[in-house]
């Protein structure tokens, strides 16, 4: 059984799997710890294990941490979930995972756990018992409880863990977060959507009050929790003397095909382009050069696959003539709903005809307002 699965792994990965065969031979439960803090590499590693490892007779726990990132669920709308402009300025990327659920903020103070099982053995309650059991072992008397929505609450009120899952044909994974010492100020400032007027069928997130375990008790550091989680898992899933195996997702030799997976997960077409169709209906506050005169315009945008499918601008005719506004709207169709594409289009559009100074300023202001939505 073990030999057959090794052959499978070799056939898929194509090269030697240092460390992994020995680890896989130890039995039915295995704990892996990722050495990477790149959210895309870790998400790709999750997919790789799900797709390539034989999980019918074996259970795996993957422990991972990322540098700052916002991770949205499979069918969510990043424009509806977070402040994309602030994230671009701060260099915090958006990642889209393959499991469902809501948006979470990751940083090194947040622990991620992924429980890999066969489809038959998929049991989220059992997995969460590992987490609550570990915390209770570290700090007896701590009030942590899993809810029926598979969140974990501290003191019955603060959310310290959220869950999501992905079910394939024969295998499944359930992953959850665990807030140890995350940067809560950054979390709350980034998870504040700024694009107004979005109508969408995308899965919405339910915001909850959160707290760090470290704030509750200084002994609950990410490393101590990590260690205890591994112990608890190996006990729960019946493996004696197992150890935590470090893995490096960037290793293409061991994880054949992972580079391509990382590139796909990083691509804009996946992170933003995979958003279900949505529309934006909002008003724009327009100003003149010195801010002395003001006006309002309405804009209606339909975005599919992350690209503008339709754009309608209604600007008062005494503020700007209708012709240039319609031209601008038609130029935006087909562009990504993202300033990196629309700002150059607006700049090129502004040059396309000589205009008097007043009209040029107002058009420029209109362009700036539209681009700021994205």
């Amino acid at each position: 059984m073990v030999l057959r699965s090794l052959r499978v792994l070799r056939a898929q990965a194509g090269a030697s799997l240092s460390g992994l065969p020995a680890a896989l031979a130890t039995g039915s439960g295995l704990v892996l710890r990722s050495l990477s803090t790149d959210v895309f590499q870790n998400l790709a590693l999750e997919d790789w294990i799900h797709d390539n490892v034989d999980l019918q007779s074996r259970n795996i726990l993957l422990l991972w941490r990322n540098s700052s990132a916002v991770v949205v669920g499979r069918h969510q709308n990043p424009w509806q979930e977070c402040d994309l402009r602030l994230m671009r300025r701060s260099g915090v990327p958006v990642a889209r995972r393959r499991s469902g659920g809501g948006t979470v903020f990751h940083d090194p103070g947040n622990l991620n756990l992924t429980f890999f099982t066969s489809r038959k053995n998929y049991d989220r309650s059992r997995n969460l018992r590992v987490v609550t059991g570990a915390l209770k072992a570290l700090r007896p008397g701590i009030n942590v409880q899993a809810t029926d929505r598979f969140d974990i609450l501290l003191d019955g009120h603060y959310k310290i863990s959220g869950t999501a899952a992905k079910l394939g044909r024969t295998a499944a994974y359930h992953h959850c977060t665990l807030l140890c010492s995350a940067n809560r100020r950054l979390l709350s400032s980034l998870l504040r959507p700024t694009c107004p007027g979005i109508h969408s069928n995308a899965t919405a997130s339910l915001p909850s009050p959160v707290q760090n375990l470290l704030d509750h008790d200084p002994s609950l550091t990410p490393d101590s929790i990590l260690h205890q989680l591994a112990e608890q898992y190996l006990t729960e899933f019946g493996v004696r003397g197992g150890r935590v195996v470090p893995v490096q997702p960037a290793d293409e030799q061991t994880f054949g095909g992972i580079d391509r997976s990382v590139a796909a997960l990083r691509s804009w077409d996946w992170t933003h382009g995979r958003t279900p169709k949505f529309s934006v209906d909002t008003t724009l506050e327009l100003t003149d050069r010195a801010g002395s005169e003001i006006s309002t315009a309405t804009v209606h945008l339909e975005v599919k696959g992350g690209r503008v499918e339709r754009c309608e601008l209604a600007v008062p005719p005494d503020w700007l003539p209708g012709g240039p506004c319609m031209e601008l709207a038609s130029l935006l169709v087909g562009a990504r709903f993202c300033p990196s594409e629309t700002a150059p289009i607006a700049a090129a559009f502004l040059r396309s005809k000589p205009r008097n100074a007043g009209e040029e300023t107002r058009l420029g202001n209109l362009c700036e307002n539209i681009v700021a939505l994205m």
Partner: protein
Amino acid sequence: MAAVTRCSFNSVRRLLSHHYKRRCVFKANKQTPVFLSKRYNARLFHATSAWHGPILQFKLSDIGEGIMEVVVKEWYVKEGDKVSQFDSICEVQSDKASVTITSRYDGIIRRLHYAADDTALVGKPLVDIETDTGPEVAQEEDVVETPAMSREEHTHQEIKGQKTQATPAVRRLALENNIKLSEVVGTGKDGRILKEDILNFLAKQTGAILPPSPFHETQRPKEVQPATQTASQPATQTASPKPVLSTQDVTEPLKGFHKAMVKTMTAALKIPHFGFCDEVDLSRLAALRSDLRAISEARGVKLSYMPFFIKAASLGLLHFPILNASIDEACQNVTYKAAHNIGLAMDTSQGLLVPNVKNVQLLSVFDIARDLNRLQALGASGQLGTSDLTGGTFTLSNIGSIGGTYAKPVILPPEVAIGALGKIQILPRFDSNGQLVKAHILNISWSADHRIIDGATMCRFSNLWRQYLENPASMVLDLK
């Protein structure tokens, strides 16, 4: 050669399929009563015309955890698509779990029972699939179990002690083309042989270039979807710009930035351009720059030649403000712009962008260098905003950083002048003593709007600019 081979394959295929069909019918006749009573009594069976396969309703199987309904989030197939067993059909969501539903059969999708965002019920039909293998495909009801095998599949080919796994459709394709399954490398899960493996094997044998498999449409979502199917070579899925040999013309509409550029360039070429070129000896500037680089980098700013070129241009514009002007649509008025917002044409991933440094007349060389660093960083990360990209009054294009000597730049409206800098070359020149020396030579090509600027003005401006750069100490006299 290929034609001959293909011919012979065809005849063999016809011969074999004739035999195979007869065998099929024979088998089916023998087995049908047993099949229907045991496996198919619980299934709806739509009878269709003789040469189409039966249409089977694929029901949404139990997700587990007592869930009775899910939301269909995304379809990976549409009606008319061909699917293989285990191809992904759709993605459904239930309570934070995203579930991939895979096909149980090979066949053609005939009907989708739900649209995206509809609620689907467990146990009710999800899709109708027209199978092409007939009643030989007997599947397990529960998707949760290990892969469903038909009775025929259980009789694996045991060759060289290896079991080869393949669906009946794949086996028939192999048989029709006289291919031994043991010779084919399976790329499916657990070494399973897929239809693509047979097709690739065939392609290698006949040297034929096969059209891209329509299964690309229904590949598992983790693989990057190829953009178009027009190239007859299988599309590469990596992002590196490999030269792609296509045998067909590809037409696509101009969108977004390219459409806007068409309008801009059309407006630009309405301006009557004239050109003026010269060469500048930057030997002294090169020495000055290498002295100042260390100081600048200590302050955290990279110093290139551009800040000097930009500052020298601004100093020149103070003497020749007509070059920093704009003419209105009716060509009635000229507006002399107060601010020197000097743009620098950049080749970025977003395309040709011209961000500008605002108010150069008020900035020192170091300030300009710092602003350029900021703009270059933004350009590299695709974050240049409208305020950086608009409001320019004069432009320099550093095409020489990529290559070239003399150029014929196009003026960017509403400006009236532009300069293109060629690459800096080390060339032999005579100095004032008549000695042959190595000189750092840069070629500059100016274009200007001949409606309001004449050759003499351009020439004098260029001379002044050149003088500042050839003798950088003279810039100190005029710096504000």
